[in-house]
């Protein structure tokens, strides 16, 4: 009874603390807004957000420092459902969700929604198949469950390696995001930004493990959701007249449809698109015989300059011809580089594809492949969600099974708030670009566009190709990340809101990195060191080994991130496919099918991951080069499914192999049957206990 009472008052206290905290944060933003009006410079607003939020997370980390095992690994198992939901939300939503998602939706329209659906619908699987059962099992890591259910160190090791593989790929992307945000908003160098952010991550997870990470993630969720919603609500008020544009942007979507038609038919747009088509065609022709094309091009320019001079043409024409000659590539290799670039212009020669139309493609076959790939991404993101260890681990931290179930609801609710706003933002931003930026004159671009073009040409680049002084849509090159970053300025909000957005992006990246690092360090410290190497280690030693490993992993991840590895989106997608193929079949069959046994699980996990990796290696260009695969891609492609969705094959294969091999080998022992019954019922009289303390 006293325990029940203490949990109730604990929850109440938490609510009070976080309400005060959220109020304090809003007051802080308002204070900075006033300071901005009084002349505080942008640089200091950036610093104020960066250091005050990181300092705050550090403070929470220090306040919840711990050396107790259950506190370090699972936050003492007393995180109420509501707060675990917020923490999971922050854990889940990464820099990619916060900064990149709306941009992806802007650029790919309907087809980008595969990620929105996949990254939310996966929680249905978490709720129905995993969270309550894992909570009843109640240990520390996901390999713990595999080890206990199937027995032996082989499956535990496989689980541990899979956990490390998916989480490491993912954490590198997060730390990269941290570096990007800090450097963009404070002017610090990228490398320094990475290590400032790393400090913020470490002070939390290092001192207090899961306990500190949980309470920091709740704080980070509050900041990130305020930061995401504020500018969108403002922009939505401007366009739709109501403060919840999420429900009213259908009208805006219709207007975009009309603008798309207008832009497709506009003669000036057609002119620019034809310009690109011609250039691409010329480049293709030149690349067939580069040496000849180079010589011809050069002599033509030389002849023109000489002719003009000979004909006593006006001075400005002569200078122009000489300039053109001087700008001509110095040798054939340089010219080839230029032509290869021009070849890419073909992509810009197409009219805008309609935003709301699913699966665009040149013919029915291409459209059907696009549809299969859309569903493939949805499938892999969903099952990957339900298999990523850093998310599943969060459901070990609730007080009981009952709250674990409710906690999945709160998790998805808090994630939903951001994910149903992202498509809204994409549409509102597109309308702004199509209606205000397109058709404006180069002399008077909208303020935000003029500013961002200077800040970062990779995010926004507008060039007057047909020299008519008017912006055509085809002349705009836009990087996805700008959608979230520039929204405050598009909405005409003061700079302080831009700082707020940066703080939100930082919170998203830090919270996810925290959860992932902890997963990796725990896999090594708990599963490898304690369970396999030294089962007699004292609790103090176990925690300090985990902490030391955390530090090492963090440094390796930061080093990898500072190398700026490309293709982060592919890597993140690959992590989902791998997680789906490795963990999901073994975990779910372990709970729902008593007959599943050790050999089935070992064979199934290996087959799932193995096939997934094989498909990626044979169909993804970068990996093909790395492994020296020379046979054509079409030999390996199955139904045109992209390598990112390899889990579509890996997961069913893993399931089938577990079933077949289990049936061919002896049934598991009696105590395994008992374990399965144990996790299926929240409470049984005379039940065994598996909860680790």
């Amino acid at each position: 009874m006293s325990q029940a009472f203490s949990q109730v008052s604990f929850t109440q206290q938490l609510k009070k603390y976080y309400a005060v905290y959220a109020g304090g944060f809003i007051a802080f933003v308002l204070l900075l807004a006033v300071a901005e009006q009084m002349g505080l410079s942008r640089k200091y607003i950036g610093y104020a957000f960066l250091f005050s939020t990181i300092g705050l997370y550090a403070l929470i980390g220090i306040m919840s420092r711990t050396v107790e095992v259950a506190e370090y690994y699972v936050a003492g198992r007393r995180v109420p459902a509501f707060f675990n939901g917020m923490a999971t939300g922050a854990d889940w939503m990464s820099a990619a969700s916060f900064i990149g998602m709306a941009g992806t939706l802007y650029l790919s329209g309907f087809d980008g929604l595969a990620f929105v659906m996949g990254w939310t619908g996966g929680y249905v699987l978490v709720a129905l198949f995993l969270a309550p059962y894992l909570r009843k099992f109640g240990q520390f890591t996901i390999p713990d469950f595999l080890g206990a259910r199937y027995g032996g160190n082989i499956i535990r090791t496989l689980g541990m390696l899979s956990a490390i593989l998916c989480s490491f790929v993912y954490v590198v992307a997060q730390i990269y995001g941290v570096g990007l945000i800090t450097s963009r908003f404070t002017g610090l160098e990228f490398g320094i930004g990475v290590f400032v952010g790393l400090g913020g991550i470490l002070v939390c997870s290092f001192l207090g493990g899961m306990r500190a990470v949980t309470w920091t993630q709740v704080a980070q969720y509050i900041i990130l959701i305020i930061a995401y919603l504020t500018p969108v609500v403002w922009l939505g008020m401007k366009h739709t007249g109501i403060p919840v544009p999420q429900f009213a942007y259908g009208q805006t979507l219709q207007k975009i449809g009309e603008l798309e038609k207008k832009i497709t038919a506009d003669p000036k747009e057609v002119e620019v698109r034809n310009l690109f088509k011609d250039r691409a065609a010329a480049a293709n022709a030149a690349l067939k015989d580069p040496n000849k094309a180079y010589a011809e091009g050069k002599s033509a320019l030389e002849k023109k300059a000489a002719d003009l001079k000979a004909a006593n043409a006006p001075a400005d024409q002569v200078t122009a011809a000489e300039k053109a000659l001087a700008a001509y590539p110095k040798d054939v290799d340089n010219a080839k580089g230029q032509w290869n670039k021009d070849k890419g212009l073909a992509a810009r020669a197409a009219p805008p594809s309609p935003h709301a139309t699913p699966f665009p493609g040149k013919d029915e076959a291409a459209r059907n492949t696009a549809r299969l790939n859309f569903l493939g991404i949805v499938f892999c993101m969903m099952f990957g969600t339900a298999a990523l260890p850093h998310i599943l681990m969060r459901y070990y931290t609730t007080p009981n099974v009952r709250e674990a179930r409710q906690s999945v609801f709160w998790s998805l609710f808090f994630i939903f708030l951001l994910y149903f706003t992202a498509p809204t933002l994409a549409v509102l931003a597109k309308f702004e670009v199509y209606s205000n930026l397109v058709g404006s004159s180069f002399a008077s671009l909208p303020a935000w566009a003029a500013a961002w073009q200077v800040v970062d040409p990779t995010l926004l680049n507008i060039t007057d190709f047909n020299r008519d002084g008017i912006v055509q849509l085809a002349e705009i090159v836009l990087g996805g990340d700008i959608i979230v970053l520039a929204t405050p300025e598009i909405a005409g909000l003061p700079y302080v809101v831009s700082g707020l957005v940066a703080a939100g992006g930082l919170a998203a990246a830090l919270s996810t990195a925290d959860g992932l690092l902890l997963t990796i360090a725990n896999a090594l410290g708990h599963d490898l060191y304690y369970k396999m190497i030294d089962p007699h280690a004292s609790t103090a030693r176990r925690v300090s080994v985990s902490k030391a490993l955390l530090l090492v992993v963090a440094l390796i991840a930061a080093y990898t991130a500072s190398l700026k590895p490309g293709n982060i989106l592919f890597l993140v997608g690959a992590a989902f496919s791998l997680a789906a193929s490795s963990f999901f079949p073994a975990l779910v069959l372990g709970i729902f099918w008593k007959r599943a046994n050790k050999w089935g699980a070992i064979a199934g996990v290996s087959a799932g991951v193995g096939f997934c990796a094989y498909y990626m290696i044979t169909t993804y260009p970068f990996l093909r080069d790395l492994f020296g695969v020379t046979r054509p891609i079409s030999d390996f492609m199955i139904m045109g499914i992209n390598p990112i969705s390899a889990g579509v094959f890996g997961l069913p294969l893993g399931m089938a192999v577990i079933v077949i091999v289990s049936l061919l080998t002896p049934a598991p022992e009696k105590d395994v049957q008992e374990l399965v019954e144990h996790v299926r019922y929240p409470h049984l009289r005379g039940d065994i206990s598996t909860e680790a303390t």
Partner: protein
Amino acid sequence: MELSAKHQEYWRKNLLITAILMVIWFIVTFVEGWYARELNSITFLGFPLGFYMSAQGSLIIYVVIIWYYARYMNKLDNEYNVQEEELT
């Protein structure tokens, strides 16, 4: 330990509700996605329906599925006397 018939029934009911909710999940995810082009010819709240479902409608249904499952199971625990000791 031996499970009573009542325990077996609890588990069967759990499997049944899980299956029903999975069917709903499958329809609003994969069937909806497969027919998105066709659904787009219907207008709903000013949106083409296929777009609306993928951007918002299916998401709302996911949230409701999870909410309902938690409520249903937490009640079922009490009905079959397998609930945990009261903590909250």
